[in-house]
């Protein structure tokens, strides 16, 4: 029952990794509407006020005809500007709705699939992996690869290249020692950042101040900057602010802490990470790639004690020589066989034992099983301590053209007489 149940898809819980797929466009829509709102408010109020003022002035004969025309021109310019901005937001809105629709349709496809064995599931799950890989690439800044894969697989609507590319641009500017782009972003998202209690803006302002200290000798600029941008934070971050204040007394080559680390250029990397964290949090995205979550859960679920066992898996080192070695008859032949390391014939290599994941899985725990699960039935023990299914041994003996009454170890290639076999009982 357990196995049968395991291949059934639990629809309520199968799309955990796919939540950001719908949540992100929803979040971006919110941001988009908010920006639109901001601009509407700003321009509308300005135009309304000006219109009222113009009317009043006109009634009171304070405004000439030319003044009125000028004012109207001013209003027109404002409204045209608003239209331009709003059109961009409307376009973005359409794009996000289009994207959301495509994504829901993609997730809905799974509703028709009820077991893991269904061929449709494989196709769907492959696409999910592609999505996870693109997400991984984007988060590591491998943007070209992400773009290439998404295009190749025709799934641009299912991945968030624009969002991440914009993010990685800001990140890169920080890594290159510029705070302007990140500060602009902070300004755009002031409210949310405050709600999140993010210290990003403060840290960026500090960095600006540190750079002013580094470059200018009469530190007037630095002092002015601190007065304007850093002192307001002195209640929130008292320690940091006092360190910052002390920095005035030290040159950038000081060996004294904490000032030496304030001058350290490694801070840029730290700021870049801080920005990335804040950005992901703001959009409700997980802090690390979804692929990591899938892998840490999947590797464990697949891993067995045998996967890193010294008995079954001495095989992988043998792999490289394998191609070039010319297998001869007899002893050599058997050596070759051993190096393939598959416990059972005709089965494929376990994914955790495979080169791709073996080292990665080394540090995760193996799956918990409360019941024995044997791939073969009717087990027999060979004199060398290895256990196989009887049918498996017979088949291999047959294929290896052994004499009647002889069997051959599937892994080591040793030959034994059938009367040396012992039955094994697994309870």
């Amino acid at each position, binding site marked *: 029952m357990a196995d049968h149940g395991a291949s059934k898809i639990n629809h309520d819980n199968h799309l*955990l990794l796919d939540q950001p797929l719908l949540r992100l466009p929803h979040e971006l829509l919110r941001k988009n509407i908010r920006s639109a709102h901001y601009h509407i408010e700003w321009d509308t109020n300005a135009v309304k006020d000006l219109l009222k003022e113009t009317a009043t002035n006109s009634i009171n004969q304070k405004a000439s005809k030319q003044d009125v025309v000028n004012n109207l021109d001013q209003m027109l310019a404002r409204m045209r500007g608003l239209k331009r901005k709003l059109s961009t937001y409307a376009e973005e809105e359409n794009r996000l709705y289009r994207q959301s629709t495509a994504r829901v349709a993609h997730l809905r496809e799974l509703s028709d699939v009820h077991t893991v064995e269904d061929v449709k599931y494989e196709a769907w799950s492959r696409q999910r992996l592609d999505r996870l890989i693109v997400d991984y690439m984007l988060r590591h800044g491998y943007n070209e*690869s992400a773009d290439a894969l998404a295009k190749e697989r025709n799934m641009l609507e299912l991945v968030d290249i624009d969002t991440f590319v914009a993010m990685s641009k800001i990140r890169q500017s920080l890594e290159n020692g510029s705070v302007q782009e990140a500060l602009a972003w902070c300004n755009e998202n002031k409210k949310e950042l405050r709600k999140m209690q993010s210290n990003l803006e403060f840290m960026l302002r500090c960095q600006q101040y540190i750079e002013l200290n580094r470059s200018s000798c009469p530190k007037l600029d630095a002092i002015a900057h601190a007065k304007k941008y850093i002192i307001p934070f002195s209640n929130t971050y008292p320690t940091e602010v006092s360190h910052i204040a002390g920095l005035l007394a030290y040159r950038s080559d000081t060996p004294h802490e904490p000032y030496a680390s304030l001058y350290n250029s490694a801070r840029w990397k730290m700021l870049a990470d801080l920005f990335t964290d804040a950005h992901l949090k703001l959009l409700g995205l997980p802090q690390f790639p979804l692929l990591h979550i*899938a892998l840490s859960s999947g590797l464990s679920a697949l891993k067995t004690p045998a996967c890193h066992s010294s008995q079954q898996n001495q095989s992988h080192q043998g792999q490289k020589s394998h191609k070039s070695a010319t297998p001869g008859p007899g002893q050599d032949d058997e050596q070759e066989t051993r190096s393939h390391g598959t416990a059972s014939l005709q089965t494929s290599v376990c994914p955790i034992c495979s080169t791709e994941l073996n080292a990665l899985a080394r540090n995760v725990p193996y799956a918990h099983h409360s019941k024995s699960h044997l791939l073969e039935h009717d087990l027999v023990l060979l004199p060398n301590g290895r256990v196989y299914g009887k049918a498996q041994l017979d088949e291999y003996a047959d294929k290896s053209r052994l004499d009647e009454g002889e069997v051959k170890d599937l892994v080591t290639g040793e030959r034994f007489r059938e009367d040396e076999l012992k039955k094994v009982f697994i309870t």
Partner: protein
Amino acid sequence: MASEKSKLEVLEEEYRKINKLPRLAKAVENVDKIIELLSAAREQVASDPESHTTITITKLQNPVKTAFEAVNDGLKGAAAAHKKMGKALDKSFPLKPLPTDHDAMADHVSLINRAIAMHLLREGQFSVASTFINEVQVTLKREESADLDEPMDEGDDGDEGMDADEAVSTTSSENYDLSSFHSQELQENFAEMYNILQELKARNLMPAITWARNNSVELEARGSNLEFELSRLQFVWLFKGPSVNGLPDDENNGQRGALQYARSNFTRFQARHLNEINRLACSMAFAPNIAASPYKQIFAIDTAFSDVASSFTREFCSLLGLSAESPLYLAATAGALALPQLMKYTQKTLAKGTEWTTSNEMAFETPLPESMLYHSIFVCPVSKEQTTDANPPMMIPCGHVLAKETLQKLCKGTRFKCPYCPSEGMIKDARQIIL
């Protein structure tokens, strides 16, 4: 089942409705209206005599006000649609926070990069793979040069120092893998596999047969019949003649071609597959009406090509020591299947502050479908523990199997009694087995 709609079907329907709601475009329309009103008024003021100005501008007030309200309504509409979407999401796709307090994979970027690169190659995405490998190298180089520039800092941000430290140690030990990977023969191997599979898809068996012949010794050692299976299919394929296989209608095709192919190729299989060869030969006698003959199964090849393609993939990868299916695909799929259990567990242990990756064995079961089990699992029937290298399975003389630690506990002196049958045994007669 069928009549009941799944949550995502409901969600899709909701989205369809939301898609019809007015959006920001409505606001843009009304901004346009304002522009019209303003420019009309401007023209009028400019052309009319000075005395009309006040009337025009006063008259303008109300329509503009209404239009501004409409702009606001457009915005409200868009916000309402967005809110509706949020509600639909919460109802049909409720947010379940992912376990993100601990990233067990963070220190293994190079290993994951390698797994991805190999996955892409496997899938035949050669150009994406090479873009990816290049980007990874460039990033690595950049990070390395950055690391060289500055010595590690020690100071109030000690945490940062630690992270960076780890990153350095992992890159230096692991990045070798990926830089050597670029030139590795693996890429060529996958390219070869991919080409052969492409040919198989196009119903051309020859490249696969050539490969199988070149590797016949290893394949035979694995007990694989691949070469023969491919050759037999080639025979059948030729036998079907030009109308089916679309090959040129000459002496190398059709029944004559098949016979000729058999003569020149089947002798090498005689020792192992005499029976099948005889059957193929006999089938020639039924040539005019194979479908009604006892041999019809040999000639029903609807799935034969995809079957040989998958056995080819399996053998090809096995000879390289690789899993036939992409391990990354399997792991990600298994991950999605096991994630609900993991989340349930992490939620419960969150309070205790223990991390689930710290012990050797997971603390909860993550059932996977049978097709995802690759090794036999032995759970000691007494201790209920899985056997490991340290605690291996032991077979006692009666044939029952127990974990070594269980056996040691059962022992009284040097003797023990089997918990499953009446027989007794000596500890020295128990032997370790490899399942």
